[in-house]
């Protein structure tokens, strides 16, 4: 090499050291042993393993746990599990010869009464692979199950599966509250498979069935079985029993719930507007709650639906019908719908005005039929002057113009919004129900954002906004449950409580896992006289000659209440706008034991539509109060 260096030159000789030789020999030995073992298994013992694989497969079969039962507070079951059979399809085992598959599915369709097209759709929609059984129908009738069993030899891809069915004992009564169960979805399965869910598990889909899933579900067991080539179980080798779900005792009192439901239903056909003309509400909700504990005795939502439909496999048209019905039966309106609160919101305004010193309990304003501010005229509901009054009188008479004058003192600041948050508006509660909506408490920031989002320059919060908000109109939206807890807070002297539908959870071995204890979200941060004055206003509503709660007068119990009639944009006749009719109440005034909220969407006047129902509910409570308190 001319330059005096070069690369490596010749290929170096392969001369392994002793250690490398040992390593190589060791490796060779290991691979040889593996090779012999493979030959032994795959050649010498081939027939042995082949038989095991084809004829005597050992399989783990999941045993689904029995779902927990929900009881009313008085110990009556609201739902039961009934033994039942369903039909499942394993696509990989369907007869694969052309035409045969259609014949097989056609036969199945005729036996179980599910349209052929729906079968095909369900099978192609499954993302679980060809070997996962797809449950196409649950709750087969005895005759269907027997027929299917008879024809199984001709239907290689069809399985008869045992699947306990959920039967709700009081259909429609509690449907939006209890919800229903249904097959697990692919995404839910992916999320939950580590917790023992299987592709064909059922899971709570709405209401308490979904909210209490972790208690109601239980733990699955399994059995190890020997199956033959056709998948038939030959021998059970090992069983680990599933653990059933927990029993959940609700706070719902069954008799009270039935009464409230029936009264609310009655009100649907007896709604009147301000002029006394009949109107047809689209939906309604009622809540009865213990204002000292947050326990809900009754929660009704209309229109309702028959939740048992979901258990036997609801058809697509039935489901579409439920979805398109104007009153949205699948929504629990008590927690899942937002309504303008109307005059029931005036206690918020009063609390804020008193606490921040805009007025005192003895401040007196006139109550004219209208007042003019900034060139705009704002009307009272009454066309006559109701005279001079205090804040308590103004709540009782629901005088809008009094509250306008209070709002005028507040100007464009928003103490009402702050107080609304304190009372729990604009936020969801800790109740065990999914599908809650937060409602809306508007303030300066929110309105500014709204303008911007709609492409306008942000406008300030006007005095007019405060005026509207003061009487529960404008942008404010609330849920009936929020109102129930707000009324409870006024009733119990200023404590916002957590609402609950669950009083006790008991495990299958009889251990009490949870007993509800009242939980305070917060004390409303105002001096005691403020709450007392607001309470007095609700009392006046019932007893004062100018009060709107006159239907509760001359009762054996003393109640306190408030009407509300909230207009919302839709004009159903010239000059007539749809209204939500509210009545809220608690009783007895001195030591409240029960708080009631009734609301009819599109129900006209609160005084005509909602108040009579609230009165019936309170009357029922009075007649049965001893039984109710005896259960606690």
């Amino acid at each position, binding site marked *: 090499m001319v330059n005096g260096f070069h690369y490596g030159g010749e290929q170096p000789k392969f001369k392994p050291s002793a250690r490398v030789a040992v390593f190589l020999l060791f490796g060779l030995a290991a691979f040889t042993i*593996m*090779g012999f073992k493979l030959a032994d298994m795959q*050649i010498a013992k081939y027939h042995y393993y082949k038989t095991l694989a084809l004829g005597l497969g050992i*399989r783990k079969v999941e045993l689904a746990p029995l779902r927990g039962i929900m009881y009313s507070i008085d110990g009556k079951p609201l739902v039961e599990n009934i033994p039942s059979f369903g039909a499942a399809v394993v696509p990989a085992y369907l007869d694969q010869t052309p035409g045969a598959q259609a014949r097989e599915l056609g036969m199945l369709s005729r036996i179980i009464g599910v349209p052929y097209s729906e079968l095909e759709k369900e099978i192609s929609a499954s993302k679980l*692979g060809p070997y996962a059984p797809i449950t196409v129908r649950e709750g087969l009738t005895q005759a269907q199950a027997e027929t299917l069993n008879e024809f199984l030899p001709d239907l290689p891809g069809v399985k008869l599966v045992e699947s306990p069915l959920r039967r709700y004992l009081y259909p429609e009564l509690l449907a939006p509250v209890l919800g229903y169960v249904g097959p697990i979805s692919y995404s839910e399965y992916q999320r939950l498979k580590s917790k023992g869910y299987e592709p064909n598990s059922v899971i709570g889909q709405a209401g308490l069935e979904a909210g209490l899933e972790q208690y109601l579900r239980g733990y699955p067991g399994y059995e190890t079985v020997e199956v033959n080539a056709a998948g038939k179980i030959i021998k059970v080798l090992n069983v680990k029993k599933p653990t059933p779900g927990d029993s959940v005792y609700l706070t719902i009192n069954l008799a009270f719930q039935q009464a409230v439901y029936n009264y609310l239903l009655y009100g649907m056909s007896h709604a009147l507007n301000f002029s006394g003309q009949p109107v047809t509400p689209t939906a309604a909700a009622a809540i009865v709650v213990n204002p000292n504990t947050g326990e809900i005795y009754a929660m009704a939502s209309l229109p309702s639906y028959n939740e048992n439909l979901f258990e036997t496999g609801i058809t697509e048209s039935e489901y579409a019908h439920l979805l398109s019905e104007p009153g949205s039966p699948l929504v629990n309106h008590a927690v899942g719908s937002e309504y303008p609160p109307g005059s029931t919101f005036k206690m918020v305004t009063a609390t804020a005005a008193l606490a921040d010193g805009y007025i005192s309990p003895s401040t007196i304003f006139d109550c004219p039929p209208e007042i003019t501010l900034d060139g705009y005229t704002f009307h009272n509901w009454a066309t006559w002057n109701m005279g001079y009054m205090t804040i308590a009188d103004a709540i009782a008479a629901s005088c809008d113009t009094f509250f306008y004058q209070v709002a005028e003192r507040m100007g464009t600041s928003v103490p009402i919004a702050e107080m609304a948050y304190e009372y729990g508006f604009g936020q969801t509660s800790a109740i065990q129900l999914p599908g809650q909506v937060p409602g809306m408490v508007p303030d300066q920031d929110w309105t500014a954002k709204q303008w911007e989002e709609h492409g306008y320059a942000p406008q300030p919060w006007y005095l007019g906004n405060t005026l509207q908000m003061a009487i529960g109109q404008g942008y404010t939206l609330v849920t009936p449950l929020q109102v129930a807890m707000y009324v409870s807070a006024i009733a119990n002297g200023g404590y916002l409580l957590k609402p609950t539908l669950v009083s006790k959870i008991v495990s299958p071995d009889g251990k009490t896992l949870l007993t509800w204890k009242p939980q305070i979200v917060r004390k409303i941060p105002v001096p005691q006289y403020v709450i007392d004055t607001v309470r007095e206003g609700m009392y006046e509503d019932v007893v004062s000659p100018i009060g709107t709660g006159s239907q509760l007068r001359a009762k054996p119990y003393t109640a306190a209440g408030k009407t509300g009639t909230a207009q919302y944009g839709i004009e159903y006749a010239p000059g007539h706008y749809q209204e939500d009719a509210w009545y809220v109440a608690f009783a007895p005034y001195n030591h409240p034991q029960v708080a009631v909220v009734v609301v009819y969407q599109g129900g006209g006047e609160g005084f005509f539509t909602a108040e009579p129902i609230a009165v019936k509910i309170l009357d029922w409570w009075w007649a049965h109060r001893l039984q109710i308190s005896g259960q606690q």
Partner: protein
Amino acid sequence: MGAQATNLRTAVKRVRVGRAREFDPHILVVLVILIMLGLITLRYSSPFGDYEFKKQVLFSFLGFALFFGFTFLDYRELNHYALPIYLVALVALLGVRIVGHSSLGATRWISIAGFTFQPSEVSKLILIIALASFIASRSDKMHKLSSYVLALFAVAPLFFFVYIQPDLSTALLLVLITAGMLFLGGASKWQLGLTVLGGLASIPLALHFLHGYQRERLIVFLHPSSDPLGAGYNITQAKIAIGDGGLFGDGFRATQGMLGYLPSSDTDFIFAIFAQMFGFVGAGLLLILYGYLIWRLIRAAVLVRDKFGQMLLYGIATMFFVEVVVNIGMNIGIMPVAGIPLPFFSYGGSALVTDFAALGVAESVIVRKKPLVF
């Protein structure tokens, strides 16, 4: 002299970038065959094979990028950065304990920008780099006690952090890689003997610290009939699948994994699926492929003059050897159940790209193996 200096510079540069002529195509060919067989098997390994197949294909592309990237990278850079790389790995493993995702009680995954990866898989390669660097730096003193003790101290934190994931199987794999590298790297006989004795002596202690499921697996291995339907279920099903494959295999008919009989059929027990699909002919060929791959790595290591490069090759060869023997051994029932993936077969991105990267590092050593001789 000017021309000579230029030539020298070119020559040095050429050594740095390596010589394409030295690239070992055998390794690449075996790698391509293995990954293709692995992907086909994965596709039919479980009801979710379709989804996992697509994901694994993407990781294979990433793997090939890493393979060629590491081939082009001068492996001696790894020697310079061995310590920082090692420290980063420790931090990542610790990070898993703090921010990691749990799966079945073990926290082994860490999530970065939406991708989860398993640092304990990558730690295998890190260990090899760190240990190779250490042994190369003390190549003339490896027989001394101080070297031996220092080496053990250096790798102990990595074992410990992997062990507390908890990932006992990978920790054990790290121990075996270390043992292999110390053996091939020139530790003295009595040191190795002491290690073996120490290992045997610590078995009762280890049993005490084993998690319930690990102890169960070990007992099942020692007494397979003790619980054929509980913990022994997997092994029973794997053996049925393998035996059912016969001489030529069942082909693409429903595998035990797709039927849902064999759990973990896409990961630890994928060999059983392969053996069922391709029979003894396929399984034997697979053993030959792995054996040939390991042989090519050992052969190159013997020819390499640079101690660091040589130790890297020994380490990588040991890693593949241990993984293959432990995994296949477990599938055919001659090794206890341990969560060691089968290279290029088991579903899992972290292990796959680590295996690709390891072969890339090996090629990087091979293309630069010819020393400059003056």
